[in-house]
């Protein structure tokens, strides 16, 4: 356990010692800021219209702002996650520091979990920025906070799953660009798989639909936590970390 913390701390330090962490946070702040501004503007516009038509009941902030915004964050995450995970192992392989880690008295699992936790923690820091925007909704309105919490939980689970896959990909190459591009393609595919399920009913289509990240995230955005979705994310995390462990082990045999 101590070793996991040591590795995790070191990873977080390297994220924040280089511009990567700040760059990702800035990118997210700008993109999410735009989405937020857009959603609130639309909401205000529609509110005025409905008031002009003489309806007096308040509109649902959760349904009209928070939920679509959480879906937006989920998509932005698909782009940010490869940038977070690409350096996890490929950097160590390129610089030779992997020799230090693999010849120190550590279990491979400790290295992998430490690194993965650091990546998830960085993504968590990025998510915190969106909390700042949501804060204004609570300052000027009375949305329900529980769906938002569930939504964040879903975002973290989604990131955990994709980061685990990204960690696996980064053990395969010493080139960060390759690791990043491959992870990005996988993220994108796991997102668009859903489309097939829209018009196809074959077994393959339903399998692809099941694998889609979006389908399993959507209930979270509504504030609904279904065990099936949680199990999906948990098994993706497990699969990704398991493959990482196998790959790291095979690195020893191939090296």
């Amino acid at each position: 356990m101590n070793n996991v913390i040591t590795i995790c701390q070191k990873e977080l330090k390297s994220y924040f010692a280089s511009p990567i962490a700040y760059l990702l946070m800035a990118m997210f702040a700008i993109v999410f800021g735009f989405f937020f501004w857009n959603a609130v503007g639309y909401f205000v516009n529609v509110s005025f219209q409905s008031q002009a038509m003489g309806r007096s009941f308040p509109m649902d902030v959760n349904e009209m702002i928070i939920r679509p915004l959480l879906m937006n964050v989920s998509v932005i995450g698909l782009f940010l996650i490869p940038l977070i995970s690409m350096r996890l192992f490929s950097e160590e392989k390129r610089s030779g520091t992997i020799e230090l880690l693999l010849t120190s008295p550590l279990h491979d699992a400790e290295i992998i979990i430490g690194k993965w936790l650091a990546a998830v923690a960085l993504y968590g820091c990025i998510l915190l920025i969106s909390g700042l925007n949501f804060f204004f909704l609570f300052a000027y309105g009375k949305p329900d906070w529980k769906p938002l919490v569930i939504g964040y939980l879903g975002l973290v689970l989604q990131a955990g799953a994709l980061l685990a896959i990204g960690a696996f990909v980064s053990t395969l190459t010493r080139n960060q660009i390759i690791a990043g591009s491959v992870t990005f393609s996988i993220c994108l595919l796991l997102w668009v798989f859903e489309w097939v399920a829209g018009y196809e009913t074959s077994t393959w289509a339903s399998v692809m639909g099941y694998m889609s990240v979006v389908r399993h995230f959507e209930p979270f955005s509504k504030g609904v936590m279904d065990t099936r979705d949680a199990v999906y994310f948990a098994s993706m995390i497990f699969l990704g970390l398991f493959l990482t462990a196998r790959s790291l082990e095979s690195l020893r045999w191939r090296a």
Partner: protein
Amino acid sequence: MIKVEGLTKRYGRNVAVQGISFEVEKGQIVGFLGPNGAGKTTTMRILTCFMPPTQGTARVAGFDVLEAPMQVKQRIGYLPENPPVYPEMEVEEYLSFVGRLKGIPSAELAKRVDEVAERCSVADVRKKLIAKLSKGYRQRVGLAQAIIHNPDVLILDEPTAGLDPKQIHETRDLIRSLAGEHTIILSTHILPEVEQTCDHVVIITRGSIVATDSVQNLTSRLRGQEAVAVQVSGADEPVIRQRLEQVAGVSRVVARDTHNGLHSFEVESLPGKNVRAEVARAVVESGWNLSELRAVALSLEDVFLELTAAEKPSEGAKQ
């Protein structure tokens, strides 16, 4: 301390190391000597549990690298060919990170970092980013990292590669000063390094050990067969050579060159015979002029070249 038996490592169809065996006693400094690609790094990586052997066993302090890797790793400090440093870290930060990885209790950590930083003369740059350090400093940070947990065994892969002469000298002194408390294996393809720093030498070429002996024995083994350089004038070269070959104890006479009537020869003697006096007498008695007579010692370099020569590696080993 280290016992390797029948160690073999194959990468696909390539054989990197072929059934090597050797032993290292506690407190010794052993040099792995061999041309590039001979299998030195592979052997070291197996000893450090970085990769498993295909066949054979390797034991460090009684623990097998396959069966008890954690125990082996705790007892080994390893400096790979490129120091495994994180450029974005400060020296002190890096050393305490490695210290924690190696399992040093946090109460002792700061003290150990101070000690190794002092010992490896990196104390003056401890607050600097590793990215800003010169190659020599990085190498020393690498060494400090390897000894931070006070391991029984130190494995150093080409510790002086890429350093300038002054740094090489300092690094060798440092390594020498570490002997005794640590058992050290270092690899190199530089001969003087072995002569100056090591007690024992293991010569590896193309995955096999061709010689293993103490440095003294190995050099004196061929020094027994002394060679004498002779310069003679006053007769034709074939005549002189014929006369020299008749001297008792001479095994071979090689004509080198001729300058202004001065003929140079190299006279090799049988092992254990000193032929210098005999050669001198023969020349003078024949009425020729003896201009030069000196012993030519065979250096470790010659031994090395002889043993690793591409044509006859195995014969060289069996001599």
